């Protein structure tokens, strides 16, 4: 394999990884933008999405197989994750919206512990294996570069979802309400926006996106474990910070960039250092440009 082909191959791997990060980072960023909460449980919702996808796929295996079954499983995972996100918001976060930020953050850690340990107890700490029955090596070869069909579908789905989300936030009434709440909650209330409903919807949307990522990861990696959300949670946060937390295009850009950087880093360094590399970028980013690439300078209002 020539150097160029190696670079391109790592580029493809980086884009796949990056689209997972971007999908999870979007949920982080949306929730942070709207209620200034680092939703610590977000990585665990991603993990739950992967588990639901795996279970539904197993249940469907008698009737469906291949891509239709994967699609149905992911849709089911989205609904369940959305419900979970809504429940967490309704019962854990909403009572604390006026409380100090530390209480809200600690509650998020509590929610994360609950989801994480529930799945751990259910699965008995064992990883589950997923076989979609799809041919994971079939794909298009260009020179020495291989792009499998699965990779292409993953990228296409991520791109479509992100496009859809941008349109939703930019061009619908609810999307406008979300942006307005991020700016000033009290004024929104005065203007007759049902703030609680929109916040709930934001959580559902963010969780559904994380579940898509979880489902896709399940297909791509072929195994699911209760602790899979932990690292991706921190990395998605890193991605959100790189792009500028609170910014939707920022989260997408940050995710893809982090994926590419990590693929490059893995190539240059030993792969056992790849997490160190990613978290090092987070700290570096906070030193150099804390508002991120696309974030606006935050003006704190009292």
């Amino acid at each position, binding site marked *: 394999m020539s150097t160029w082909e190696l670079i391109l191959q790592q580029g493809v791997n980086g884009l796949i990884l990056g689209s997972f990060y971007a999908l999870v980072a979007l949920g982080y960023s949306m929730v942070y933008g709207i209620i200034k909460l680092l939703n610590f449980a977000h990585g665990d919702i991603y993990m739950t999405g992967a588990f639901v996808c795996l279970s539904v796929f197993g249940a469907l295996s008698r009737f469906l197989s291949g891509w239709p079954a994967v699609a149905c499983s992911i849709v089911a995972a989205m609904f369940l994750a959305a419900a979970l996100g809504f429940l967490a918001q309704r019962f854990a976060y909403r009572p604390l919206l006026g409380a100090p930020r*530390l209480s809200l953050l*600690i509650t998020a850690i*509590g929610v994360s512990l609950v989801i994480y340990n529930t799945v751990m107890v259910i699965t008995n700490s064992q990883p589950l294996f997923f076989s979609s029955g799809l041919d994971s090596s079939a794909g298009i070869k260009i020179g020495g570069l291989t792009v499998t069909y699965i990779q292409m579908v993953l990228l296409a789905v991520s791109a479509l979802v992100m496009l859809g989300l941008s349109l939703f936030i930019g061009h619908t009434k609810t999307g406008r309400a979300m942006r307005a709440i991020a700016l000033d909650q009290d004024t929104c209330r005065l203007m007759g926006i049902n703030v609680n409903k929109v916040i709930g919807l934001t959580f559902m949307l963010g969780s559904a996106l994380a579940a898509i990522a979880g489902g896709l990861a399940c297909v791509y990696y072929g195994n699911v474990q209760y602790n899979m959300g932990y690292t991706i949670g921190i990395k998605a946060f890193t991605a959100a910070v790189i792009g500028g937390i609170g910014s939707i295009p920022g989260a997408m850009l940050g995710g893809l960039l982090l994926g590419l950087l990590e693929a490059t880093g893995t190539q240059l360094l030993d792969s056992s250092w790849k997490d160190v590399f990613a978290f090092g970028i987070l700290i570096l980013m*906070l030193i150099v440009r804390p508002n991120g690439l696309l974030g606006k300078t935050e003006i704190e209002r009292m």
Partner: protein
Amino acid sequence: MIKAKEMMNSKWLGPGMLLGLLAAMLALPLFSNDYVLIVLWNGMFYALLALGLNIIVGYCGLCDLGYAAKFAIGAYTTGILMKSFGWNFWLTLPMVVLVSLLAAILVGAPTLKLRSDYLAIVTLGFAEIVRITARNLDITGSASGLNAIARPELFGLRLTKSIHWYYVFLVLVILFVFISHRVRSSRFGRALAYIREDEDAARAMGVNTTRYKLYAYMIGAVLGGVTGSFFAVRMTAISPQSFDFTQSANILLAVILGGMGKIPGVIAGAVFFAVFPEIFRDVPFIGDARMLFFGILLVVVMIVRPQGFWPERKRGALK
């Protein structure tokens, strides 16, 4: 160990109880076996970590999710200096303080200028960096860690028995309580409480919030580092698994559920977390699901009683 002064109105009852408790703790080894001493040692060890984290979380209201890293840094600094360089244990302590301070500045200085909640994720990321680095390097003994760390000597006595360590850690707990108390009742401590209650107002009143937050973070890191060094020589073996996220989460839970900022509450929380697995070790379901219950407890406590079970009483507060 527990200072119950806040509870009592009488001027002398509090110190009296404190002295009584201290006497009981001092005399206890005369009447108990090794198992009790080891369990109590474990409780005191968690109490030290919780007291250290309490300065960051309880006094200053910052969320540190990677406290295990501070304690790992202390443990590994001592371990490496003793194993690879043949240092005496007591001489490693100043180095531990120095390294802990440097690490705290490296993480805290860029982060604490920003919104306080960034610290939560950055400390989490940093803890992972520390753990993975310890696992990958040769000098830290990679995945199996360092072992056969020598036992230190104190006034010619080699500290090997449980009873020795019981007293060493008792002294450390008293020292940490003293430090915490001094920090709390100083001008600096009042500034921290101000930052915790209302950071914007504190800044408006001329408190240099970034600097004070960094100082609190540094003190917490040093206490964690020192605890880590003693842990290393007590256990004589350390490995990366001792410093994972569960460890950080346990310490944080002890501080928050015990009562943020309140010394006896924090110690009670820590002892509870150390003793709880001992009691329920043989109960099948609770052993696995205990973190699940703690998670639920954490959410409920935050909603119903956000100040913890035994919180600090506000002195002269308006509401």
